[in-house]
């Protein structure tokens, strides 16, 4: 089975932490065909969540309009250095992936 690495950065500047998550995912729409003319089945992330120290900060619902290997950027107020950030996703085929990092000075 394919592996889906995630790269996450969480940088604290002043009171604002900016988090970047680069997710490896095919994000297939289900509309494309392969070289043999067979439809490539849809596979896309449906739910992406961000947790800081175990507390859910964001849950976003995605669809096929998001590109392959998407990059997510978001800003967070009130987090501290060393806090644990976990980004995880679930796609329509039930596949899951997650990655974590700690907040460092930006």
């Amino acid at each position, binding site marked *: 089975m394919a592996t889906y690495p995630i*790269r996450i950065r969480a940088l604290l500047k002043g009171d604002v932490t900016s988090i970047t998550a*680069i997710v490896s995912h095919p994000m297939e729409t289900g509309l494309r065909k392969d070289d043999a003319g067979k439809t490539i089945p849809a596979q896309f992330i449906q739910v992406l969540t961000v947790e800081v120290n175990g507390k859910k900060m964001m849950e976003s619902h995605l669809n096929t309009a998001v590109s392959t290997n998407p*990059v997510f*950027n978001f800003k967070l107020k009130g987090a501290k250095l060393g806090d644990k950030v976990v980004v995880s996703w679930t796609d329509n085929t039930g596949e899951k992936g997650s990655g974590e990092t700690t907040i460092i000075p930006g």
Partner: protein
Amino acid sequence: MKHRIALAAILALVLHPAYAQEKAARKGAKPAALVTSPAEQKDAATLEFEKFRTQMEQEGNPAELHEMRGEELWKAKRGAKNVSLAESCDLGLGVGVVKGAYVQMPRYFADAGKVMDAERRIVWCMVEKQGFKFDDLAKRPFAGGDYTPEQTALVTYVAAQSTNMKIAVPLKDAHVREVYEIGKEVVNYRAGPYDFSCNTCHGEDGKRIRMQNLPNLSTPQGALTAVLGWPGYRMTGSVMLTHQWRMNDCFRQQRFPQPQYASDTVTALLTYMTANANGHMYKGLGIKR
């Protein structure tokens, strides 16, 4: 009334883009190189993309996923000889040293007796040190579809470790100088059904193909444009591509036969181009349309 017509005429002249440009050119306060010729004028879409590119390169480029994979491959014991590149491969700064290696290649490697660019050197290490077969690596050397060759990921990892470092191809080395001169010959070599050389498009300032501005590779600034952004993540197809791939694509566009993978010719081209950009900053992994 007369006054008003004269005013309108002046206004029309001022508003006319060609006149405005001429005026800018005549001002003479700015050096001539800064005056944009019509071919260098960028449309709004290009400017927007450049803004987007800068943001992506700073905030998060999917190329980093390949960098991660490259790092794993660099450190893993692999191949028939079961050794890692980290403990066997010398990129010119010592065995296993990757920091700053990319910006100092192509360079001469005494153990191989050849001048090599980063990708060629990595392939050489994979064959000589790890025991991979060259023919296997050359079978499908560039990314396409869901496939990314291991050597592409490795080049991506190595290149990323030279981010924000100065390009310094060792031109003082006689071997490198020789290959540089060969590269200069190659860019001038006209052939193929259209009788094109690289310099047909890349030897003068201000040339373009459709709306795509073409860098003049004989100038430091032009060469820099051609070096920056490689290896790069191309959003069309979501693939990771190396500078060697770019050379192949130039050959294709010239209607030349495809060059041999990791060959002398490609290294010569990369040496010429990269050395022309010597002294400028390499900005790291790129992102392409």
